[in-house]
């Protein structure tokens, strides 16, 4: 009984010692690097650089506009 208690108390003390030893090392991880405006930047980049699908859609719309302009009813000769 006493032997077991001694073993448990010593292992707890060892754990505490390891905790103390690792405390300053853990504090070294308190600081980090991360661009704060990452979300803003990504949103901006989306605005500046549209995706391929957006580009395709825009060109498709332009093409439709051009076609509709070229086929205006007043320009069609109904001879």
């Amino acid at each position: 009984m006493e032997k077991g208690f001694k073993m448990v108390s010593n292992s707890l003390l060892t754990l505490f010692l390891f905790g103390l030893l690792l405390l300053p090392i853990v504090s070294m991880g308190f600081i980090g690097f991360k661009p704060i405006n990452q979300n803003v930047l990504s949103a901006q980049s989306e605005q500046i650089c549209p995706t391929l699908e957006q580009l395709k859609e825009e060109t498709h719309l332009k093409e439709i506009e051009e076609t509709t302009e070229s086929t205006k009813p007043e320009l069609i000769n109904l001879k």
Partner: protein
Amino acid sequence: MFSRILIKLVDEAIFPAILLLATRLTSMLVVSKFFHANYEINANGVIFVNLSDYLKVNSYSTLFMILILAIGLLFIIIKSFVFHDSHISPGFSAKIYSLKMPSLIQSSFNIYSQGTIWLSYIYLILIVASFMTLFGMLYSWVLFVAIITTVISTALFVMDIEHEVKINKGKEIEYDSDSKYLEREEE
């Protein structure tokens, strides 16, 4: 109930742990103010916006931690070489007692338990600094400072331990190799 050595080690580990933690936090704030670094404090800790700022602050802050450890180790090494009770000269001992500073003279148990803890800290910082340098989070010259401090302090401690072992060997009772009288007794 508790192991005497473990209690001594825990006792000796509290002060450097708090000192290093305080050094890290203080130096981080001072260095970031000195370099006008932009940072943000949130739940994850102190986050820097600029990578170069982070590199500077992290490197100098680690350097301050190494310097504090070097000062502590130097103090322990001086104690082990000059104020060690096993090899202090009687004249110098008397002088220290006359100056009313007998606490400077310490036993091997005190000095070596302190040395073990402070050396463990420098080794742990060396390991972390190596990884940080490997991943480009620390200037490589800071790692060199850590390596030099670790090597010198370890070498000096080993020298003192060797000296201590020699002294203890000298104190051992030496028996004559001639055993003819012992044999006669047996007869």
